[in-house]
């Protein structure tokens, strides 16, 4: 049942009847797929559809329990990742595979460092030059000698991409490469992808941002619940159709923010300075309001949110919550005050990998779940919390006891969002709430935010996805180098303005 539209072109990569099983889960179930030379092939589907699993099979991380993969006609059965490298298949995994303690250059060249034959010494000069070249192509400026641990998530994502490009494989596989990138970084990446295609290479491209899919992909294959749905030509389809195939129902992916009557000021920041370069930021967040924070990655969004959450000490200024002085010295204080927080780095600062979904969800509200004079945790109360939030976000897991590390990226994100809501949802500080979340869930999350604000919650939302940022927030505050350079309301809320403020020193809605 090979679905490939026209068989004129011999496929480079042929997947047939691929099945992958985990204890209790069939992640892939007889999936067929064919990738041609010089095409960009998008792989789309809901969270947990099996996209990453498929890519991990290609990368030699997982061995299928049934089905075959053919590379240029030859049976291709990688036993370990190095086999994939040997066959010229380069993979960008959804979860980074970087070495925090090593430098950027050492990461990009990991495993293929140029070195002199006699002294075995690594040619650092050559590596640095190579990195600069790659970053040049990606149009970013990252110091090859920086330690990866010191980089922002988006920079790490770019290093990850450079690593794959450097390996110059014939088949390049990208699992949500843009999840952490800013708009212009995305544009650059898409150009690179096109260039790769024009060089005759094949690119497998996974993303939940359909506009990207329509921008670069030639064909798209849809997976649902681990099963192959269909492969179709992008030219011959449109977004609604794609979404319907993915989700199995209609979803309007356009954001609409229901205007809610704005209440009193809940959270006030008064000329707050914190962290390395957050300077003198003043900001009011009203009940029922969503304040979007924009700007190029690392402009101070992280510092701002962490300061509010008590994870970063203030160097100057002060904050108020409901008119009371609010000076959380630790996240515990902020949580106690009912502030919910979502970190942008899901893997390292989000999930508790060895714990179950239930335990991940309740960890911020343990004090509420204790009962009896012994103050022991009440299992029932935990279950209740799980059913309340877990089902609200339609988390896809075998049950509350599944390890969170076994969930798909997007479902992990939903659990973490539920964790952020649990403290009460009066004040929500959300970093990239829909990163790696499928379009259906995205809509749900936006609906949820509407719901919460309608109920009087005050939300601060950082997002590098401009349409989302503009579509879901009442007011957009643009940061640049740690300072507020724009406060966009009403008609000013346009992508152009955001970009202008963020990049060119232009200022809107703030005294220069």
């Amino acid at each position, binding site marked *: 049942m090979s679905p490939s539209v026209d068989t004129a072109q011999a496929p480079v990569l042929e997947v047939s009847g691929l099945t992958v099983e985990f204890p209790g889960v069939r992640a892939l179930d007889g999936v067929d797929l064919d990738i041609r030379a010089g095409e960009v092939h998008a792989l789309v589907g809901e969270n947990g559809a099996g996209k990453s699993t498929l890519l991990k099979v290609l990368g030699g991380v997982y061995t299928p329990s049934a089905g075959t993969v053919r590379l240029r006609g030859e049976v291709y059965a990688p036993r370990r990742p190095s086999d994939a490298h040997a066959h010229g298949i380069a993979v960008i995994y959804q979860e*980074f595979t970087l*070495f*925090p303690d*090593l430098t950027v250059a050492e990461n990009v060249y990991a495993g293929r460092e140029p070195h002199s034959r006699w002294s075995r010494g690594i040619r*650092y000069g050559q590596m640095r030059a190579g990195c600069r070249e790659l970053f040049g192509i990606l149009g970013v400026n*990252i110091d090859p*000698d920086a*330690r990866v641990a010191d980089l922002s998530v988006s920079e790490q994502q770019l290093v990850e991409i450079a690593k794959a490009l450097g390996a110059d494989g014939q088949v390049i596989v990208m699992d949500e490469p843009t999840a952490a990138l800013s708009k212009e970084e995305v544009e650059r990446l898409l150009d690179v992808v096109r260039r790769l295609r024009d060089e005759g290479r094949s690119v497998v491209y996974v993303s939940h941002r359909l506009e990207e899919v329509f921008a670069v992909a030639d064909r798209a294959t849809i997976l649902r619940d681990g099963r192959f749905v269909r492969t179709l030509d992008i030219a011959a389809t449109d977004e609604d159709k794609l979404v319907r195939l993915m989700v199995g129902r209609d979803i309007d992916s356009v954001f609409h923010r229901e205007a809610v009557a704005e209440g009193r000021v809940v959270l006030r920041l008064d000329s707050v300075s914190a962290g390395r370069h957050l300077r003198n930021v003043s900001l009011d967040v009203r009940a029922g309001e969503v304040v979007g924070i924009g700007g190029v990655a690392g402009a101070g969004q992280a510092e701002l949110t962490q300061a509010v959450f008590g994870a970063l000490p203030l160097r100057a200024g002060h904050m108020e919550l409901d008119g009371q002085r609010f000076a959380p010295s630790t996240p515990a204080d902020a949580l106690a005050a009912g502030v919910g927080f979502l970190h942008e780095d899901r893997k390292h600062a989000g999930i508790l990998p060895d714990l179950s979904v239930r335990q991940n969800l309740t960890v911020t509200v343990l004090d509420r779940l204790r009962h009896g004079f012994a103050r022991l945790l009440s299992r029932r109360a935990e279950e209740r919390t799980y059913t309340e939030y877990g089902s609200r976000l339609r988390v896809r897991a075998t049950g509350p006891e599944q390890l969170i590390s076994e969930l798909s990226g997007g479902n992990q994100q939903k659990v973490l969002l539920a964790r952020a809501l649990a403290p009460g949802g009066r004040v929500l500080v959300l970093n990239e709430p829909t990163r790696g979340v499928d379009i259906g869930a995205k809509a749900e999350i936006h609906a949820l935010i509407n719901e919460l604000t309608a109920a009087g919650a005050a939300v601060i939302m950082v997002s590098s996805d401009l349409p989302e940022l503009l579509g879901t927030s009442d007011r957009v505050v643009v940061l640049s180098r740690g300072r507020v350079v724009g406060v966009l309301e009403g008609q000013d809320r346009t992508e152009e303005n955001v970009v202008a403020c963020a990049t060119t020193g232009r200022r809107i809605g703030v005294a220069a």
Partner: protein
Amino acid sequence: MTTAAPERAVRAADPRARLSRAIENAPLAVPLVLIAVVLTVATDRFLSVDNLTNVVVAAGIVAIPGLAMTLCIAMGEFDLSVGSTVSLTGAVTCTWIVGGHPAGLAMVVGLLVGAAVGLLNGLVVTKLGVTPFIATLATLVIVRGVSLAYTGGRDAIVSSSTLKFLAAGRVFGVPMPVVLTAVTALAAWWVVNRTRFGRWVCAIGSNREAARMSGLPVDRVRTTVYVIVGVAGGIWGLLISSQLQKGSGQLGLGFELDAITIVVIGGTSLLGGRASVVGTLLGAVLIETIRNGLNLLNTPPAYQRISIGLLLVVALTIQALRRNAPAEALDDV
């Protein structure tokens, strides 16, 4: 802030950076200097050539396995079996010498035994997937047992000038152990900071899963490191047996902790990912200086333990405070 990155970036690659890295070990040098000053005042003989030679030689001898252990710990793993390797290597070498074989051959055989122990560790850890801690703890127990069984509880006493030269000989007036250490240290520095192998070791320590995904020969590197530690343990055993002119099941008890200690107080994190060759050398000198000082001051054993313990803690506290680790980064062991 792609532009902001370089400001903070620890410039890991180029030599200047290496230098500044090396200077990061200064906190260890501080207590070292302090102690040296105190001892110079408290005892008249501390600065004597004889005494300083003693310190340097002793430090050098423990530094050799320490440097190998630095690799292992940078890889995020332990090798607890070194002490037993010391015993077995010495036992085998001396028994061979007693058996009338040429000392040179005997020493080679001894080193091979060390390598074999390392290989055993490596295979058990990689192929059987046993936690290094338990795997090497088990080899510690096993190899100690083998060494006792091999010697039958009887020491193998030798008087071999060749073997003696290893620990007591001098080249151009420089004690052999110091020469050996210098060579080892240079090699270690080169391997750690300049070769792919060294980078791969740190990569594995930094994120083993990523190392596997990036197609690094993880198992091969890990095994090699264990073999290196095994050989280094062998050298240690030869040096000890050279000093004492005997091999015995009793030697090297608890040495593993000595080796690990100098690495850790040298600033190599037990979490892996980074290796500090200079730090390990300083660590060795610090420990041996303390020991030597306490001996010069004729400190009773009870107080010796207390002092060493306290000085360890103080040295590390200074280091920690200097590094000013954020409260939550406590667990970088």
